[in-house]
C-alpha cells in the first residue's frame, strides 16, 4: 500500500476527532532543528466543511482489537485497514511543516496487537521526529488507555500535549456502548500525567478530552456538570463535544438516518465558553429542572431572558463581568467600551462609531442613563424580538460559521 493510500484511510478514520487547537504549548525543551517551540494556534487551511486545519491529524493505524459500537474502527466493522510505519509518520510531519501546511502533528490510534505495542509504535514515531529530524513543532498525542505507565510517561515527555477521550458522558453509557472500557481505565492516562507533574512540582500540561453528544441519553445539564468537575479538579483544560454521526445500526444507538445534533453541539460549546471565560456557573446555564439548553437562543441570551432583574446595565458604570453578561456584547466590544469610557461619557452614538453591534444588546443596556430601546424588559416582549433575530432561514442547517465562532471566539 502506498503512503498516499494509507494517508487517505488514516485521515478518514481520524477526522471525527474535533480537538485540533494547537495553541498553548509550554514546552521549553529545544530539539535543535526545524520548527518553532511556541505554537501559536494558526489555522493553515480550512477544509470543505469549514473546519480549521492546523495539525496533521491522523491515526497511526485503524486496526483495532476492540468493539466499541459507536466507532468506525471497531473490529466487527468491515473496513479497509492500514498502518503507518513510525518513519512515515515522522517524514510526513516534517515535510508538511516545512511547506507551511501545518503547525504539527495530532496522533491518535486504534489498538493494534495490544495497548503497549501500539504505544511503543507511537513512541518510536515521536523519537524519530524529535531526535532525528530535530522537530520542534507541536505534537499532540492521544494516549492509549491501559498502556503501561512507563510508556505513557515516555510519550508524554516528548509531546506538547496529551489527551485521552472519555467518549461518553456516563459510566452507564460506557457499559452499554463500549464494554471494553471503564471510567477508571479511560482516566488512567490523565491521572498518571497529572500526578507526575504534581510530584515533580511542575505545571500540569493542559489536557483535553472529547465527549460524543447524542449517542447516549445524557442531558446537557449532566454534560456541563461533568465538564465543570473536570475544570474544577484541574484534570482537564478543555472538553470537546462531538455530535454523533451515525455510521452503524445498533439497538442502543440512534438510527442511521438521524442527523448529527449540530445545533446542540453548538449550544454546548457556547455554554462551555461561558463557563471558561465569562464567569458563568454551570447551574446558571442549565439546571435539573431545565436539563436541556434552549436551542432557540444562545445560552447567554437564554440566561439573560431568565434573569431580567439584572438588567438594564449602564455601560458607563458596569464592571467588566457585568458587561460580559449582556447578550450581544463579546470580549472585543466590552474591551472597546472599557477603553473608550476612560475618555468620556459614552452615549449611544459612540457605540455606533466603534461599530459595536446593538442588535441584541440594545434591549439590555442604558448609555448615559437613557435606554437605547424603549421595549419593556419583559420576557413576553423580548422573546419574539429575539426569535426574529435568531431565526435560521427556513431549511438551512445551523450555520457552521457560528459553530466555529463558538470554539474560537465570541458570543
Amino acid at each position, binding site marked *: 500500500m502506498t*503512503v*498516499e493510500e494509507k*494517508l*487517505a484511510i488514516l*485521515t*478518514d478514520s481520524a*477526522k*471525527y476527532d474535533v480537538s485540533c487547537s494547537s495553541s498553548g504549548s509550554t514546552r521549553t525543551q529545544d530539539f535543535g*532543528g*526545524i*520548527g*518553532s517551540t*511556541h505554537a*501559536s494556534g*494558526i*489555522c*493553515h*487551511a*480550512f*477544509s*470543505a*466543511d*469549514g*473546519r*480549521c*486545519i492546523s495539525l*496533521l*491529524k*491522523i491515526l497511526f493505524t485503524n486496526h483495532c482489537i476492540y468493539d466499541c459500537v459507536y466507532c468506525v474502527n471497531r473490529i466487527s466493522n468491515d473496513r479497509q485497514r492500514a498502518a503507518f510505519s513510525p518513519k512515515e509518520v515522522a517524514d*510526513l510531519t516534517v*515535510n*508538511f*511543516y*516545512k*511547506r*507551511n*501546511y501545518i503547525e504539527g502533528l495530532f496522533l491518535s490510534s486504534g489498538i493494534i496487537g495490544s495497548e503497549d505495542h501500539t504505544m511503543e509504535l507511537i513512541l518510536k514515531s515521536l523519537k524519530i521526529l524529535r531526535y532525528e529530524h*530535530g522537530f520542534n*513543532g507541536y505534537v499532540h498525542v492521544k494516549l492509549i488507555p491501559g498502556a503501561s505507565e512507563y510508556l505513557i510517561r515516555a510519550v508524554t515527555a516528548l509531546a506538547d500535549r496529551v489527551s485521552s477521550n472519555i467518549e461518553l458522558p456516563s459510566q452507564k453509557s460506557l457499559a452499554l456502548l463500549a464494554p471494553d472500557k471503564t471510567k477508571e481505565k479511560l482516566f488512567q492516562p490523565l491521572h498518571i500525567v497529572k500526578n507526575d507533574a504534581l510530584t515533580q512540582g511542575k505545571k500540569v500540561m493542559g489536557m483535553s478530552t472529547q465527549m460524543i453528544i447524542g449517542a447516549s441519553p445524557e442531558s446537557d445539564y449532566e454534560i456541563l456538570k461533568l465538564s465543570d468537575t473536570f475544570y474544577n479538579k484541574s484534570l482537564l483544560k478543555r472538553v470537546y463535544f462531538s455530535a454523533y*454521526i451515525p455510521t452503524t445500526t445498533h439497538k442502543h444507538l440512534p438510527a442511521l438516518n438521524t*442527523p*448529527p445534533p*449540530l445545533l446542540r453541539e453548538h449550544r454546548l460549546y457556547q455554554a462551555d465558553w461561558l463557563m471558561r471565560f465569562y464567569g458563568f456557573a454551570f447551574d446558571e446555564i442549565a439546571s435539573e429542572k431545565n436539563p436541556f439548553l434552549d436551542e432557540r437562543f444562545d445560552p447567554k441570551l437564554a440566561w439573560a431572558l431568565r434573569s431580567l432583574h439584572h438588567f438594564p446595565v449602564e455601560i458607563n458604570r458596569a464592571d467588566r463581568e457585568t458587561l460580559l453578561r449582556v447578550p450581544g456584547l463579546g470580549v472585543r466590544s466590552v474591551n*472597546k467600551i472599557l*477603553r*473608550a469610557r*476612560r*475618555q*468620556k461619557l*459614552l452615549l449611544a452614538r*459612540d457605540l455606533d*462609531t*466603534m*461599530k459595536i453591534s446593538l442588535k441584541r444588546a440594545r434591549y439590555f443596556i442604558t448609555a448615559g442613563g437613557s435606554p437605547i430601546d424603549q421595549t419593556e424588559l419583559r420576557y413576553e416582549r423580548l422573546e419574539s424580538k429575539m426569535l426574529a433575530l435568531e431565526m435560521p432561514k427556513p431549511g438551512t*442547517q445551523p*450555520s*457552521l*460559521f457560528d459553530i*466555529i465562532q463558538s470554539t474560537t471566539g465570541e458570543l
Partner: protein
Amino acid sequence: MIWTYDGSFEGFLTSLHRSYIYKYIPEKLTMDSAGLTLLDEREIIETDFETAAKVSKSINERFPKKILERIFHVFLCDDMPFELDLLLYLRMGFKDLSLIHDLSHPVVYAVEGYQKRLLTTIHKMYAFTRFEMLDDGMLYAKIAPPRNVLPLIGKHFVKRLKSEHFIIHDIKRGLICVWDGQNLQLHPILEASEPTLHEDEKHFQKLWKTFFDTVAIESRKNYKVQRNFVPLLYRELMSEFKS
C-alpha cells in the same frame, strides 16, 4: 484641494509638514492621480528628504513605541486611502497625545481599523503562505497579499524554519524576502524566472491534497464558511485548491 505625493514615506512626511506650513488640510492626499479629473484642483507635493528627516525625528520623539508601530503598519496598507486619516491622526497626536486614545473619534477609529486589517492580513499570510521545495533544497513561496505585509512576516518564518533557507516572493509588488540561514533581507526584484522544483515536491503536494480533501466531513460540507476563512484571492497560490 487635492494633494498628490510620490507614495514614499518621506513624501508623506513632507505632506504632513506642508499642512502645518500652509495651515491647510487637503480634501484628499493620494499617490494615485488616476482618479482625478481636470476640474479637480490639485497640488503636487515634491518629496523633500531633509524636511522628512526632521519630521521623522519629531515623530519618533513624540510618540510611544506602540503608536510608531501603528503608523508604520497603516503606511503599509497600500490598498486603502489611509493618507488623510493618518495625517489628521498625527496632527491630533502632536496637539495632545490623549486625543488619539479616544476610540470614538472617527479618525482614531479609522486609523486603528487600517492597522487591524493589516494585522489580519499578516495572520492570513502566516497561515496561507505555501512553500515549495526547489531542486537545491531551498524553500520558495509566492504570495500576493492585498496589502504590503512582506516586510513584516519574514521574522515569523525564520523562527519556524531557522535551519532552512527560504525566499518569500511578493509577486504583486516585486519584492522578495530572503533568509540564508543567517540574515533576513528584503529586496526589490524586477523579474524572476520560474525555479525548478525538487523531485519530491509534487509528491508532497499530492499527499497534502489527499489529506486536505479527506479530512472534510461529508455531512458537514459548508463551502460558504470555507470561503469566509480562505477568501478566493488567496487560493490561487495555495496548492490544495488547485485541481
